[in-house]
């Protein structure tokens, strides 16, 4: 590569990267400012002094700890449930020949076209009728049966040789045993990708909680944040601090699993 070209590419990338980084950086910097610095003019580029007051305040006030807890419960249990039932369904669709399998598969895939936003109202009625309205179960169970997950599992498990399953059956292994002690260990890489996706989907989700929850003691973080923004007197200090804390788990997951992320993205290309 010619040096000129290199310089042009690097400078374009750097400018773009700075533009992309600044918004979040500004939020983080602002969250570390004292209240008087937060609205001072001209704005100080660096917080002087650095204070964690807003972070403490966020947890003291506004029940942020509770919302954080709710989000954690929802994210973890929904992800476990998703991994279990999606791998089971994917296994069935990949490794058994049975009546209706094609229809079921097509049905799963075609519902990818139904955005949750379009059926918010009937979903709300169903949740109410089942007594799930205002309960965390309503954001844990329904989104766990995602077609993306079933489809990814199926595609991955198609590559498992039938002979492996036959051999296990010869040895007297039941179907559940085969799933549990042969399929699941084989599927670890794809399970990891799905776990990451599920973590992100549930942690970031807003529409399901908005439909299912009205009781503040059941709020997830995203729901709580959106409610705080809507308040007449916005307390930006704690709001910014809460945002920073809320971004942290996603950032950690992202850094730890970066490679899975990009490859998973490339194979699935989905956010749902």
């Amino acid at each position, binding site marked *: 590569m010619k040096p000129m070209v290199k310089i042009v590419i690097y400078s374009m990338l750097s400018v773009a990267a700075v533009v992309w980084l600044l918004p979040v950086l500004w939020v983080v910097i602002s969250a570390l400012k004292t209240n008087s610095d937060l609205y001072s003019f001209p704005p100080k580029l660096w917080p002087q002094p650095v204070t964690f007051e807003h972070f403490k305040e966020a947890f003291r006030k506004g029940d942020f700890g509770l919302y954080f807890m709710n989000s954690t419960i929802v994210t973890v249990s929904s992800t476990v449930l998703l991994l279990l039932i999606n791998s*089971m*369904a994917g296994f069935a669709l990949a490794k*058994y020949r049975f009546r209706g399998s094609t229809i079921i598969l097509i049905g799963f895939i075609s*519902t990818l076209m139904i955005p949750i936003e379009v059926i918010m*109202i009937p979903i709300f009625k169903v949740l109410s009728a089942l007594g799930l309205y205002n309960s965390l179960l309503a954001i844990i169970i329904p989104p766990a049966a995602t077609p993306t997950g079933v489809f990814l599992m199926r595609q991955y498990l198609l590559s498992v040789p039938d002979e492996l399953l036959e051999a296990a059956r010869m040895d007297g292994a039941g179907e559940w045993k085969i799933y549990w002690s042969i399929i699941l260990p084989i599927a670890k890489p794809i399970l990891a990708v799905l776990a990451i996706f599920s973590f992100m989907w549930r942690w970031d989700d807003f529409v399901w909680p908005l439909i299912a929850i009205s009781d503040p003691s059941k709020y997830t973080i995203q729901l709580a944040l959106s409610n705080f923004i809507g308040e007449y007197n916005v307390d930006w200090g704690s709001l910014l601090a809460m945002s920073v804390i809320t971004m942290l788990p996603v950032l950690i997951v992202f850094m730890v699993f970066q490679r899975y992320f*990009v490859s998973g993205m490339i194979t699935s290309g989905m956010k749902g």
Partner: protein
Amino acid sequence: MSEGQRLNRNTLAKQNRKLVIAPYLFILPNLLIFGTFIVFPSLLGLYYSFHVYDGLNPMKFNGLDNYIKIIGDREFWSTIGRTGIYAAIVVPLIYAAALGIALLLAREIRMRGFFRAVFYWPTMISYIIVGLTWKWIFGDSFGILNHLLTVVGVEPVGFLTSSFWANTAVIIATVWSRAGFFMVIFIAGLQAIPTDYYEAARLDGATGMKVFRYITLPLLKPTSLLVVMLTLIDAFKAFPLMFALTGGGPGKETTYIVQYIYEIGFNRQELGLASAMSVMLFILIGGFSALQFRLSKGGAV
């Protein structure tokens, strides 16, 4: 028949029976949840759309009246129009930004992982936080942007109180939060182009723009279609980001179709009417998806 043979046949029969039932049992939990929370509500929504229903009093059948009402509802059409304009601006912008960054990052350069992470990272942040972040920047009295404008001697702008600027803010936030996702898809698409094509083009003396125009762009067509369709569908579902950034305001200036449906359904309790609007939105989105299948037929997506 010897004892052993009979035993063998028995176990075989048992195993066959198990093989027939097992797949259904494995798929059952998914089907149950899926049927209850996706399939059934979809049909229920269609059913509601032909009724007058406030969620409390008994439903009343009224045929196509909801649809007729929607056709005459100027606000519905202006939210659709607004969503359409938003899509028409956001889709090419995301396309250009994602492809541009992907092209820069497709080469062997140092710190490639770092750059990818920088652009991908916003796609991991929830729309609520994206909205909040940009509100902190565009805010009329507290935003950094207005501070900076005052520094260079320009009058502060009511970014979130003018229709034009509020929509601009929404568009900027959308592009910022989504470009990285499609950048990765473009990188995958670029990697799938065999290098011989480039070498052949080089031998023929093609350079820079020519290679891009005649090699990269045509071979990227399936990826491009996928990106355009996904961004288009995303744009028509846009809602949480605006909810956090502008609240749909000023007035209704950044209220797009999904938020409007939400307000009709949940705030005004007109469940039948909102369901009919949902059906129309679904037809719109389904139309785009069908178009995508048409266009990408044979394409490796």
